[in-house]
């Protein structure tokens, strides 16, 4: 690898980067402090040793692993469903000519500008009618597919050359067969974009779980975390340990798939 030159810009960029990183470093540091280190005044700025009491407390709590599982289930189902339903819909809108497709696509895209606050009360009522309130179903159903997923897949499929599919088409392959065996293997950028955006939205959501869920055994991590804070006010180490566990999956995912992650966020921005 070529060695890059040192530059005066480091004097600007390094402090800036540290400023952005500091709160997260502090999150990690405080999660391994002992309660006595946190509770004395002024609080310690650095722990004496690594104290895993907070983590032990959180993971020993019967509810916390449950919340993690709930969040995981909701996000996993949402990601899978968005990939399946979004690619099916996106492919049909991109390639298949059928009556009403333009109108329906237009309507679906128009719903993207509807603010969530306008729909949250009636969505609550709809979910109540369906008997889903206070179940994971209430969290899953509205996130099964979003107009953004369908739109991103459509845009990607439109840009693929038709010639790729023609041979299979002439051989008499059905549309589903073509989608699964020819188009989707080429659609990795679209698949990863939709997966990233869906995971981020479902894992990090607080507003909708707050409305749709009442019993603490059905809480998601984000929801649990907010109540956790009140219940364990003096146990800051435990609260911070819980916070680390909540943030970690997204953080790890980001660090592992940074390029795809950034590209997907930047591309949705630039298409807007």
């Amino acid at each position: 690898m070529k060695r890059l030159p040192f530059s005066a810009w480091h004097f600007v960029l390094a402090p800036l980067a540290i400023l952005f990183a500091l709160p997260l470093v502090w999150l990690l540091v405080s999660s391994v402090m002992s309660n006595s280190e946190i509770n004395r005044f002024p609080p310690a700025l650095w722990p004496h040793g690594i104290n895993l009491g907070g983590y032990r407390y959180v993971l020993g709590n019967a509810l916390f692993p449950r919340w993690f599982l709930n969040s995981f289930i909701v996000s996993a189902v949402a990601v899978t469903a968005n990939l399946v339903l979004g690619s099916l819909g996106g492919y049909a809108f991109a390639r298949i000519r059928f009556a009403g497709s333009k109108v329906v696509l237009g309507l679906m895209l128009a719903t993207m500008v509807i603010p969530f606050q306008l729909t949250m009360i009636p969505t609550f009522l709809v979910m109540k009618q369906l008997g889903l309130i206070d179940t994971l179903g209430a969290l899953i159903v509205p996130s099964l597919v979003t107009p953004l997923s369908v739109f991103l897949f459509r845009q990607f499929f439109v840009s693929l050359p038709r010639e790729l599919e023609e041979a299979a088409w002439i051989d008499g392959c059905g549309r589903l067969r073509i989608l699964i065996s020819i188009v989707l293997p080429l659609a990795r950028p679209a698949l990863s974009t939709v997966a990233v955006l869906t995971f981020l939205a479902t894992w990090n959501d607080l507003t909708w779980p707050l409305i749709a869920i009442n019993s603490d055994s059905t809480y998601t991590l984000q929801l649990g975390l907010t109540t956790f804070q009140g219940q364990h006010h003096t146990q800051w180490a435990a609260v911070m340990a819980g916070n680390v566990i909540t943030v970690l999956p997204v953080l790890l995912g980001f660090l592992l798939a940074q390029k795809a992650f950034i590209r997907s966020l930047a591309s949705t921005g630039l298409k807007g």
Partner: protein
Amino acid sequence: MASVVGTFTVDPRSRAAAKRRARNEGATGWAFVSPSVVIILGLSVVPVLWSLLLSFQVNDLVSPSEWVGLANYKALLKDPAFGSAVSHTLIYTVLYVPLSVIAGLSIAIALDRKIAFIGLYRTLVFVPFVVSAAAQGVLFSFVLDPEFGVANSVLHKLGLPAQGFFSDPGQALYLLVAISLWSGTGFCVIVYLAGLQGVSSELVEAARIDGAGRWGVLRHVTLPALTPVTIFLLLFQTINALQVFDLVYVTTKGGPLGSTTVIVYFIWEKAFKTFTAGYSAAAAYTLAVALLVIGVILQVYRRRAASR
């Protein structure tokens, strides 16, 4: 050879096959899109209309509703709590949107160079963006805790007076802006960095040759080229700012003394805490119309900018 139309040979059998195929195609198309259509339209069109009905009713989400016409909207206009929710939201938006976009642009320009550690810098600036608002709220409640927080501890070491932070009505809203800037600026940076890749290097080169300095190139080449990105970010950040909720819910619950009650918090409180869903729906419709107006204005401006 039978009759030839274009390059296709038309014989009755293949025409029937083509027709059948087209009909099948239509059925396949609908089969592919129907799950998305049912879910997306069902969970947007129905609620939007339902919300409109609600806004003309007195409704507690449990007992039968009563039609009251425009009474909710009239009451909203006179409600000082709604007035201050609007002004808190506007203060938050007016501070957060320009600051995050300007900071995003400046940092993106600073990061747009090939030097050591640049990847690390980009990662660190962006990483707060993926942290949920709930987690941010919990983290900063701790950092800014007047008794146990590290912020006051640092102030103490510097010999500065301790602060009330979220318990001080004069500070709470501005702290929320600061936290949102910490997490939201990274997104602007990433979008601008992607946009900077698209700035034509020939144009920059040409400007340099014409004697433009660093500022000249920025003002006359880079910024104009980034205009679509800037407009997108202004729109995106404004919509986000007007809808801020999670962070407020976790940190201040609208307090102290209502100083951080933003519109969405007001809507949530009216629907799910005081159970005046009709009133809440009227507030939500007011917000939606405001967003629509902003959207249309920006769209018009964008068209005009594009046609120039």
